[in-house]
């Protein structure tokens, strides 16, 4: 043992000089590099310091110079057409009245086990209802929600993930909303009137005069204009929030209540471009120049922790990575002693950050959360009579989220649409739907769900596995087994190339199985397919860089089909497979400009048909939404974007005053 210590000491002594010298050299090199340039944050601050002396309104901007007319000139110049201004809760209530009484009582629904489509429909119909009257609601209740990730910013301008929007929607202000069919309308909680000019180039909104921020300051049209200008400030690290807003030509507040949006062109998507979150001007107007990151200065850190908000709830506690507590704002629905808006159903909302899905399910069982999305395995794994049923009930709904295998159209394997069709015919859809997903998912054959208004009419035929057709299409495309080694091959650039490719997939067991299913089928017709699971972020980057031959991924639906332009139009940002069809590009442009909804639906139907013919993707399935809800909860209704992301969505949930736990 003594020898061991001594040799260790010798090693330390002997190598000391060499190691230190190397270390010092490295340190000097690095330090000199560091001195050449200050940190990114500091360079940003240095850049912002040049703005420091300028008033907030004169900061550098991405807005092109424009001289807006006065309101009188504008009113004289255009003809205004009234647009709908609605209370989302009333829209939902009216829809429920039209659909008639529920098919079962609450007690009957709670007694059901959700093990069939019929049982699910009954449960959602009976428990998804809004309260019949105010007495039915437990106004003092709290709602315990699960968050799949941390909320990284409470500033609505900085939100970048769906996790953040889940929380921020409770205290953010948007002047527009949309129903479960994604039909937009002015949000009556904030907007008195909304008008669009006959030529579609202007939108005028008059705000209500009874809105206050959580610090008591009035909310005005100047906050809207300020929010627009802030979003268009290039020094602020605004994530995707700027998209759409940057299509606006100008936003002008004419007085405390009147705001006009100036568009560059008449377009069916103008309403979505006006979709911008509001921030209080009086809080940020002077501080942005000092700290354009909105997150570094003590001042901004304070408001990041407990922001000044305008929505129904306010943050009262935030422990990063653990929980966020929101409380109902009385001043949101009460004004000068009068109730002016619907009272939010919960007194308190507690969001618990639970990253692990298994822990989240256990938390649902113990009542530490009262809602939680479930994986198909978790959905099927809840056995009759287990502890899950004591506190919870399952509910499911269709989502317009489709999964596909995308082909790189630049790859020598998949640049021929006959080969892509061969892949589509090779896939065993029955096995995927019945065995991997155990009948829980619906088949998908194009980018639009058959229930959507833009779905092709008549519907496109569903595809069944047909290996004979695959072989024939491959033969037509020149892929045959010339050397009788059992693998198809083809001469490409003078070289005989075997048909061997790799499909990238996220490290999710079900998706790997989906790819393995293709692998097995292709193996039978002489194609070697390697399935390569990769980390989600790596997959994203590989897709963005077009560094793949085939990839499995999924898309959720946007609020309008124009968002697909970004995926399928030539050289667009999310067109990972480098697909290109000039006619599709033209149709996307036409669809955006078309104001007639019927003609617009036909345009998108035509796009779906062309994409079906070209098969840039082999569409696989629509992923449904699976949730566990506490038995005390009522009011959940599923939209194509899940149970929360629409108007009223999460606002429609409530707890019964009877509070009977079955």
């Amino acid at each position: 043992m003594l020898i061991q210590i001594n040799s260790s000491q010798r090693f330390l002594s002997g190598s000391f000089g060499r190691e230190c010298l190397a270390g010092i050299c490295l340190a000097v090199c690095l330090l000199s590099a560091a001195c050449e340039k200050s940190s990114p944050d500091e360079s940003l601050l240095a850049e912002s310091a040049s703005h420091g002396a300028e008033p907030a309104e004169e900061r550098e901007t991405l807005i092109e110079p424009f001289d807006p007319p006065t309101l009188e000139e504008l009113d004289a110049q255009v003809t205004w057409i009234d647009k709908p201004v609605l209370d989302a809760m009333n829209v939902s209530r009216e829809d429920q009245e039209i659909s008639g009484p529920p098919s079962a009582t609450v007690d009957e629904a709670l007694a059901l086990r959700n093990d069939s489509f019929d049982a699910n429909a009954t449960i959602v119909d009976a428990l998804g209802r809004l309260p019949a009257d105010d007495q039915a609601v437990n106004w003092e209740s709290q709602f315990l929600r699960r968050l799949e990730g941390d909320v990284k910013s409470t500033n609505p301008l900085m939100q970048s993930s769906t996790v953040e929007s889940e929380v921020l929607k409770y205290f953010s202000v948007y002047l527009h909303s949309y129903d479960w069919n994604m039909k937009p309308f002015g949000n009556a909680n904030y907007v008195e009137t909304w008008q669009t000019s006959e030529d579609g180039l202007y939108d005028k909104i008059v705000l209500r005069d009874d809105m206050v921020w959580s610090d008591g300051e009035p909310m005005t049209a100047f906050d809207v204009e300020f929010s627009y200008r802030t979003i268009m400030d290039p020094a602020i690290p605004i994530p995707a929030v700027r998209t759409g807003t940057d299509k606006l030509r100008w936003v002008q507040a004419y007085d405390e209540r009147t705001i006009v949006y100036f568009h560059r062109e008449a377009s069916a998507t103008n309403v979505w471009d006006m979709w911008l979150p509001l921030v209080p001007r009086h809080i940020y107007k002077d501080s942005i120049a000092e700290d354009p990151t909105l997150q570094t200065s003590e001042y901004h850190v304070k408001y990041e922790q407990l922001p000044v908000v305008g929505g129904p709830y306010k943050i009262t506690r935030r422990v990063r990575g653990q929980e966020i507590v929101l409380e109902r704002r009385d001043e949101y629905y009460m004004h000068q002693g009068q109730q002016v808006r619907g009272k939010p159903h919960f007194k308190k909302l507690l969001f618990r950050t639970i990253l692990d899905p298994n822990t989240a399910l256990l938390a649902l069982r113990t009542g530490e959360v009262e809602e939680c999305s479930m994986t198909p395995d978790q959905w099927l794994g809840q056995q009759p009579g287990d502890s899950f049923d004591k506190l919870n009930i399952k509910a499911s709904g269709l989502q317009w989220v489709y999964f596909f295998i995308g082909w790189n159209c630049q790859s020598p394997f998949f640049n021929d649409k006959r080969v892509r069709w061969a892949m589509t015919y090779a896939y065993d859809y029955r096995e995927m739907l019945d065995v991997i997903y155990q009948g829980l998912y619906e088949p998908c054959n194009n980018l639009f769900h058959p229930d959507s208004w833009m779905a092709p009419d008549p519907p496109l035929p569903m595809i069944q596995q047909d290996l004979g057709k695959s072989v024939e299409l491959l033969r037509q495309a020149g892929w045959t087994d010339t050397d009788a080694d059992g693998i198809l091959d083809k001469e490409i650039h003078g070289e005989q190339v075997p048909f061997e490719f790799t499909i990238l997939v996220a490290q999710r067991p079900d998706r790997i199985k989906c790819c393995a299913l293709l692998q097995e089928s292709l193996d039978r017709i002489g194609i070697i397919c390697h399935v390569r699971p990769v980390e989600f972020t790596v997959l994203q980057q590989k897709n963005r860089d077009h560094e793949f031959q085939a990839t499995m991924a999924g898309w959720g639906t946007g609020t309008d089909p124009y968002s697909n332009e970004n995926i399928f139009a030539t050289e667009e940002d999310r067109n990972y497979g480098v697909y290109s069809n000039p006619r599709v590009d033209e149709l996307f442009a036409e669809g955006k400009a078309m104001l007639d909804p019927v003609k617009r639906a036909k345009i998108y139907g035509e796009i779906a048909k062309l994409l079906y013919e070209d098969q840039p993707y082999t569409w696989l399935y629509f992923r449904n939404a699976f949730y566990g809800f506490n038995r005390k909860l009522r009011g959940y209704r599923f939209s194509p974007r899940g149970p929360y992301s629409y108007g009223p969505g999460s606002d429609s949930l409530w707890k019964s005053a009877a509070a009977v736990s079955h």
Partner: protein
Amino acid sequence: MISYLIRRILIAVVTLILITFVIYGLIRSIPGDPITVDMAQSDPSRSLSPEDRKRLEKIYGLDKHWTIAYGQWIGNLVRLEMGQSISRKLPVARLIRDRLLPTLLLSVSSLLITYILCIPLGLWITVRDGTVGERALSTGLYMLYSLPSFVAALFLQLLLSVKLGWLPLMGMVSDDYEQMSLLGKTWDIFKHALMPAACFTYGSLAYYTRFVKSNMMEVVRQDYVRTAKAKGVTPVGVVWKHAFRNTLIPLVTLIGLTLPALLSGAVILEQIYSWPGMGSLFFASIRERDYPTIMGLTLVFSALTLLGQLLADLLYAVVDPRVTYS
């Protein structure tokens, strides 16, 4: 002793520079950056435009070569700044400060429990070698050692929280923590820490106990032990005074090696138990490619590991009077 310490600290600094340099190079080489994840998680209607992506890259310093960015990071570090988390919009030092204590609470207490328990257990199974009790305990220890901690974590959650309701399922404190007395707060944290600490501990406890036993079995065959027995020293005296003290050195060596294992274990266990420590932050930061946070955590993990090794080397001198650093 002082010159030895200075030498070790200097070597530790060089090691830290090399570790962080390699790690920075590696994380910047992995496909994806902080904006990639943001884009993947955003609303499909709100995809980031290429122009905005370039602006963000410039703001976050992603447009620079990684060696230059690393130089900037080291430069900041010399000024005692760890930079700003890209995804969490907070100074990294503050993020780590908030997360350090919860992780140390689990790892240090686990280390202490392991050492406190493994010695008597190891000695007991040495003395009882070959008996039914020893066989049973040894088998149990082998089983524990081979049981993955994330599986044990789920079993414990199911049993102690869901079925029996004895312990809280997750988190570090209860909802009403702020209203509790000091004693109540301590008890609350203790209850929350019990399951994750058990998962942290059992694997190393099993390994250490076996380690003590195998070392003891070697030592008890030595001549001086036989001599002690022949001189009439009691069995306890033989084991405790003559045999055990000579097994301490390899045991102390393990301290330096255990700390990194505990910290890496924290990455999974903290996520399962929603424990707000550095492990879960590390896991999320890697997925988000939040380079400043990854680097800050790497630095802290590396420094703690080097500190553990230094501590182990210093303890040699304590447990073995023949070792001196002067």
